[in-house]
């Protein structure tokens, strides 16, 4: 393997191929992190809604989860990029197509964010529901209201319980961000593909891309492990170790 081509001037743009890779990494991180903010926020709200017994809360949340997790991510990308501008009111649609900066980036963020939200919602729900009912009873018995029980007991414990699966979800969002290349986001995989077309260094460039993905996800794993250790409950069975 010869990685010398990375420092050669790129076909266009004035930089080297390494600059293309760096730019790809930047977009991969931007798409993934923005999408994660959406996924975590909306997923948490939906997950909590699904644990309530209030029909107008769990009904819509369940509908959302079933709709969004049952459609392939690729289709989500196409819908947000090609379909949504056509079905929103005319002026908004025109703006999305012509005026909005970076339409492919925002479409990718929304598609990935809303799709992952449905998966986060299920994890948050399972975390909350794995807390024994007696805990809620005990909290209510002291006079706390149901929202207070969520705030002080169910959410702090529920999130702790689902840190491991949430870590997987967070990793998946970085890997899934590569699907954004289908609507024209020049993230890491897209750049690797372009570079391979210009340099025929297919093996090298995809090896490099793989290593970068692994480094990113390893960093996420380390951060999440630190978080897990930080919030670990002493002597609590579920935390193992």
């Amino acid at each position, binding site marked *: 393997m010869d990685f010398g081509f990375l420092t050669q001037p790129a076909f266009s743009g004035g930089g080297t191929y390494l600059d293309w890779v760096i730019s790809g990494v930047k977009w991969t991180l931007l798409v993934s992190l923005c999408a994660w903010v959406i996924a975590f926020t909306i997923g948490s709200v939906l997950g909590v809604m699904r644990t309530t017994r209030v029909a107008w809360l769990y009904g819509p949340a369940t509908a959302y989860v079933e709709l969004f997790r049952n459609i392939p991510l690729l289709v989500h990308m196409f819908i947000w990029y090609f379909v949504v501008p056509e079905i929103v009111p005319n002026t908004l649609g025109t703006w999305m197509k012509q005026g909005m900066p970076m339409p492919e980036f925002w479409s990718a963020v929304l598609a990935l964010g809303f799709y992952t939200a449905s998966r986060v919602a299920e994890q948050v729900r399972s975390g909350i529901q794995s807390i024994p009912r007696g805990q809620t*009873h005990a909290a*209510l018995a002291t006079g706390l209201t149901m929202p207070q029980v969520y705030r002080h007991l169910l959410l702090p414990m529920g999130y702790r319980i689902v840190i491991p699966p949430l870590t997987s979800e967070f990793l998946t969002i970085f890997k899934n961000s590569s699907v954004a290349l289908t609507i024209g986001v020049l993230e890491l995989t897209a750049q690797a593909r372009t570079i391979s077309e210009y340099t025929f260094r297919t093996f090298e460039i995809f090896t490099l891309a793989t290593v970068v993905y692994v480094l990113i996800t390893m960093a996420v794993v380390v951060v999440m492990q630190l978080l897990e250790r930080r919030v670990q409950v002493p002597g609590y069975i579920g935390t193992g170790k």
Partner: protein
Amino acid sequence: MAMIEFKNVSKWYGSFQVLKDCTTQVEKGEVIVVCGPSGSGKSTLIKCVNGLEPFQSGSLIVNGQSVGDKATNLPQLRAKIGMVFQNFELFPHMNVTANLNLAQVKVLGRGVEEATAKSHALLRRVGLIDHAQKFPGQLSGGQQQRVSIARALAMDPIAMLFDEPTSALDPEMINEVLDVMVELAQEGMTMMCVTHEMGFARKVAHRVIFMDRGEIVEDATKNDFFGTPRSERAQQFLSKILHH
């Protein structure tokens, strides 16, 4: 007026009736022991008192307020009634002091310092002040249950409910919990205890309620219950749990 007054309280799970026309009352300062075979509805009965279990018919007045009434502010009512559970149910992510402080601060609106002072006084009383900074998972069952009694007392309750407080404990830890309960009873706390600790009942109960299949079969003074239980079912139950 009685502090807790059940009138023909009935409850169904689907078509299965778990409480059948339960009528009884608890006066201020009275200690009531509720016993009976498992599945007889004793836990359900006691959880009706603070509205943790809803019931479908009859009436239940606690401290002058109707529990079944939608207009009743249940959190406010619950704040005055302490409850202790079979599995302790301390909040695992909070240390002992934080467990005791939570409702004092969030429900009663006490300042953190005031709440902590109260919590520490109660922990001293149940002999656990040295464990104030520990987490529930680091304590033994008996210790956790004493913390949970202290947590209930921190709200200055007008009555205490105990739902099989010693059933999940190792035999040698039962007494440390019972001692705290006996002390409470002797101080005049109004108590309703689901328990099979007949020694406790003999020592401090004023009345014993015996339940079977959702019905209150016996509701008698302690001496009558242990001396001459009227129902055959209660006699059988007593002979089983007293002679071995």
